[in-house]
């Protein structure tokens, strides 16, 4: 009952609902415009809303998050250019459907599936977070260290060309997080007598540079790429398809929640995994995958939105982000004087339920904005990059300045932007760098605590085997790392080939 009273806070402050609506609407368009992403928008929001009250800032950012994850599907279906990485899988069957003149149906399916996915994610969050929070109270420093490590590994290895590059990027992020005067020993680290660096690298400035300015530069290098447009007058939600494929929706959404709950793995990974599992499990699709199969939209769209609820679980319960956007939200909460972790739910339960409430309203507004405003959408998506990208650069400048009213922050932001440009140009992931900067304090504090408690590094490492939680986390790391190895991938390929050969033989006999 207490939970319901916390949830009802939203109704006593209708402007929060309004902010969720504004955020969701903006998020849908930000996500839909190729070149703009939810991560970029939320990172800019952090700097623009830092003087706001926490609840209002969170309501707006959650709205943007929910809208942006869905928004990517619109341009994926209509233009064959996913507006966000989480919509990459959607374009594979969404665009072929649009080419057949079924863009309205495809967008209707994407909308309903995204809403269902979001709701399942919220249910997962509401039920699992309190449990995880209770377990997290028993976490030791080695457990936090392993979780932070896992987050860096996952975000680095799953989204990049190779695991090595992900770890390099994560190590660079952790190293950048060490710059400045050490809070515990007052030793100056890599400041080179530059006064600005004494307080360390500001993660918001780095975030805006890596996600905002660098993306604008990358988009400018491809300024002449033009999309093929599809005409559409209205979006048609398909309830019969929703009903028919509900088991697939449920499977994909649960997969999305689980992937989201893993530190570091986000909507893009969930969507690709869900698409893959749909390909494996749906035996006789009406249209083959890749040629306009509705299952090819249902699976990724429900999974990528279910990630939202899942990603909040480690963020709120452990202080470790589930994906790039929740990493930014950790920094937003930190700016507002809150410290996400196991105590957050017991000390500020209203905040947790406010987030749940905002997500519920976000899902409702997603349905509303997802099914309407198609004319405005086609106009906004067609705004040339030549106009959008200078605007993004200006917003990055304003955002980085807004944190401390320092012009030097603008220069640093721009420096990180250029570095991020090189990273993206040469296929190094940028998310682990930002995650590394954000996690560096948690990483270092727990490392030091662990070493001091066990008196040595070997003692700290051996303490992994002293508690069931640590053993579980250790096994999880080994399994996740193993699943990204070439050995495992080759083994799976062999297995799949055998399975397909058996199926083909069976079909041949039946024929």
């Amino acid at each position, binding site marked *: 009952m207490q939970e319901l009273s916390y949830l009802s806070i939203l109704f006593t402050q209708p402007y929060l609902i309004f902010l969720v609506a504004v955020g969701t609407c903006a998020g849908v368009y930000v996500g839909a415009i190729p070149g703009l992403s939810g991560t970029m928008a939320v990172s800019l929001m952090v700097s623009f809303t830092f003087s706001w009250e926490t609840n209002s800032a969170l309501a707006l950012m959650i709205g943007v998050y929910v809208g942006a994850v869905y928004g990517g599907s619109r341009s994926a279906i209509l233009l064959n250019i996913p507006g966000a990485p989480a919509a990459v899988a959607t374009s594979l069957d969404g665009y072929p459907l649009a080419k057949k003149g079924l863009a309205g149906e495809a967008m209707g399916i994407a909308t309903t599936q995204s809403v269902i996915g979001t709701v399942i994610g919220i249910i997962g969050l509401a039920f699992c977070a309190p449990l995880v929070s209770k377990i997290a109270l028993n976490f030791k420093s080695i457990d936090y260290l392993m979780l932070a490590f896992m987050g860096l590994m996952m975000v680095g290895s799953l989204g990049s060309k190779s695991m090595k590059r992900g770890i390099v990027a994560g190590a660079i992020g952790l190293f950048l997080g060490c710059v400045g005067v050490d809070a515990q020993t007052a030793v100056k680290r*890599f400041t080179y007598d530059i006064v600005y660096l004494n307080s360390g690298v500001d993660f918001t400035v780095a975030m805006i540079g890596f996600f905002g300015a660098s993306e604008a530069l990358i988009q400018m290098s491809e300024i002449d790429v033009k999309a093929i447009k599809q005409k559409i007058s209205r979006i048609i939600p398909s309830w019969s398809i929703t009903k028919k494929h509900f088991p697939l929706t449920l499977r994909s959404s649960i997969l999305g929640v689980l992937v989201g709950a893993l530190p570091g793995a986000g909507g893009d990974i969930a969507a690709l995994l869900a698409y893959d599992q749909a390909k494996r499990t749906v035996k006789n699709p009406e249209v083959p995958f890749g040629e306009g199969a509705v299952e090819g939209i249902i699976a990724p769209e429900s999974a990528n939105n279910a990630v939202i609820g899942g990603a909040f679980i480690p963020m709120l319960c452990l202080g470790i982000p589930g994906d790039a956007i929740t990493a930014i939200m950790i920094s937003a909460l930190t700016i507002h004087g809150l410290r996400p972790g196991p105590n957050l739910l017991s000390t500020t339960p209203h905040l947790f339920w406010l987030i749940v409430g905002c997500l519920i309203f976000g899902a409702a507004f997603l349905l509303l904005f997802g099914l309407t405003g198609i004319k405005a959408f086609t106009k906004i998506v067609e705004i040339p990059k030549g106009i959008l990208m200078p605007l993004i650069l200006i917003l990055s400048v304003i955002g980085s300045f807004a944190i401390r009213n320092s012009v030097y922050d603008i220069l640093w932001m721009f420096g990180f932007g250029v570095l991020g440009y090189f990273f993206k140009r*040469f296929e190094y992931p940028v998310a682990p760098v930002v995650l590394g900067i954000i996690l560096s304090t948690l990483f270092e504090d727990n490392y030091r605590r662990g070493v001091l408690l066990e008196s040595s590094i070997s003692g700290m490492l051996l303490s992994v085997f002293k508690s069931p939680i640590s053993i579980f986390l250790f096994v999880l790391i080994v399994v996740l790392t193993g699943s990204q190895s070439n050995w495992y991938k080759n083994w799976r390929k062999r297995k799949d080939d055998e399975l397909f050969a058996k199926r083909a033989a069976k079909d041949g006999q039946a024929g």
Partner: protein
Amino acid sequence: MDADTLKNTEAEIENYGGAEQAPVSLKSGERGFSLVLCLVGLFFLIQSIAMWNQVSEPKLSSAAALPLFCSAAWTILALWDFLGSLRMKSPLSGLKSFKETAKGLLGYVFPKTVVVMIAAILVYCVALMFHISFYIATPIFLWGSMSYLMRDNYVKNILWTAILIAFIIVVFQILFGVVMP
């Protein structure tokens, strides 16, 4: 999200789904970037070792420990990546003359548009540092960059600039209460 990414999506899904990785080729300058990263990592590793030697016991929990571990991981893995890249081919591999290689490399790493825009942003930042008003520097930057990127519509871009400046003032300055540079 660019068109290349989309082209690679099918392969990416196969990859996530457990299929064997396709043979990888390098982008122009990718090997050089790995080497630069390795050298920068090495520089910080040397600095971290010097810091480690300066701090007093207990060294393991000192301020030098994490930077040392991070820079060591950074250097070793960047070196590993660089050595691995020596076996791969890049679009520049077949080029014989230095001039052609440099042209190919700069063409990929620094397309003209990006160089011009980086220069424009730098000039804009310097203008702000020299206390030139945000409301003067920003419209000039916006109009200039739009006109360059669109290569046309100089008059129309004045209208776009006015709309965007109005949007920035209304949304960020008035609604969000953000202090402008």
